[in-house]
């Protein structure tokens, strides 16, 4: 129990650390923006991973920390990204027993859906708050690129975290199928 709990916390810390790094990289490094003409965000894919592998507490923590870190260097009203992120995580977490979460195709589909919903829900909130961002045809490309990269990044995140988990946890002890009471005694006693 204590071991599982420690591993869950480690997983949460990894998720939050990656959210911090992702939020930082979106600002100063214009590499993706210059190359693709679109800004790539890792948060929706990270939220899909968190909601499929962790509890609702980690989902809420990621939504709050990731949303605040994303909004703070932006002109967005502070906190506007929290709710879209949390709703993505909440819905996936709610229905996760019905999802084939270990299948890369399912991860990819969920990542794409999250990448598509996140900017739309943020815009919906912004317009309801009376903010008027300027959108054009280029934004449609931005949205499409966000959706596609969400789909690509989600299975990659699963692989990355799987490797991290294996690097930090003890290898599972192999159970032997040998049972003394079921041993067939051969020969003369």
């Amino acid at each position: 129990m204590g071991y599982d709990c420690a591993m869950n916390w480690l997983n949460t810390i990894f998720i939050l650390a990656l959210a911090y790094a992702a939020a930082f990289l979106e600002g100063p490094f214009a590499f993706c923006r210059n190359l693709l003409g679109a800004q790539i965000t890792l948060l929706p894919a990270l939220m899909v991973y968190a909601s499929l592998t962790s509890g609702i507490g980690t989902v809420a923590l990621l939504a709050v920390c990731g949303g605040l870190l994303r909004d703070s260097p932006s002109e967005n009203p502070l906190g506007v990204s929290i709710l879209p992120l949390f709703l993505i995580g909440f819905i996936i977490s709610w229905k996760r027993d019905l999802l084939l979460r270990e299948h890369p195709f399912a991860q990819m589909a969920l990542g794409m859906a999250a990448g598509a919903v996140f900017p739309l829900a943020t815009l919906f909130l912004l317009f309801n708050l009376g903010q008027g961002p300027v959108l054009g045809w280029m934004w449609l490309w931005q949205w499409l690129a966000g959706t596609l990269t969400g789909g690509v990044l989600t299975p990659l995140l699963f692989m990355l975290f799987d490797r991290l988990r294996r690097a930090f946890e003890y290898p599972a002890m192999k159970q032997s199928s040998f049972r003394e009471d079921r041993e067939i005694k051969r020969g003369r006693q």
Partner: protein
Amino acid sequence: MLNKQHYITLVLVVLLVAVLLSLPSRTADRLKLAISGLFLPLIGLAASTHEAAAKAGDPLASRVELLRENAILRTNNQWLTFQLQQAANALRENEQLRLLLNFRRQKPSWNLLPARVFARDPETWWRSVWIDAGSRAPGMRTNLAVLTAEGLAGKVVSVGETRSRVVLLGDPSLRVAVLVGPNRLNGTLRAGSAGARENNMLDIENLFNESADRTVHPGDEVVTWGEGGVFPAGIPVGRVVDVPQKDYGVATEARVRLSANLDALENVWVMIVP
């Protein structure tokens, strides 16, 4: 399946968002500065890595190339020194004439503070950048004009200790009063359509025209008007590209191509007004 923990978390998150969104703008700005301060160690790391990478290339520069560049810089320096002397003489003469005429100084003097752009807004629907000049620099405050060598770039909207946020031209929150062409017609520069903004163009609206022969034409220069107290008069903004709408032969709107390339900002100057 939803359980009690899910419902409690949902309510808590919604409450937190409601509180954050209803914060007064000043408190929200301070909170934003404090949270974005968490990135400072990484920003420092990125800057020093960049510097180290630049220094690593220093020994590879050829001596011939350096000597040639040095000679060009010397020539430029002499020419600029000569120009500076001429400007100083003109300024002295101007001051003397003002004294003779008993004129009040019309424009306050201002200084330029150099700054480097280190981050852009992660959302593509806004137009703002972060610069590495903050309240530690003397005179740095909000509502100061930010320039490039080509012309106006934007204004400072929030100031931290070592960094500030600058809203650029084309952001929906920034409007600038401008004068257009030799007839000095006034209008307001606004964000305009997104398609135009992607091509570094903005719209001027509410152009005040007296008659069809005193209207704007493609190629006319656009400069700041100086009304409003943020942007001093006479800062170049751009040139008129076309005049899409005319009422009774008089232009009421115009499209402007900005002088500064706002998509590739690296170094800017903050106009410090005492």
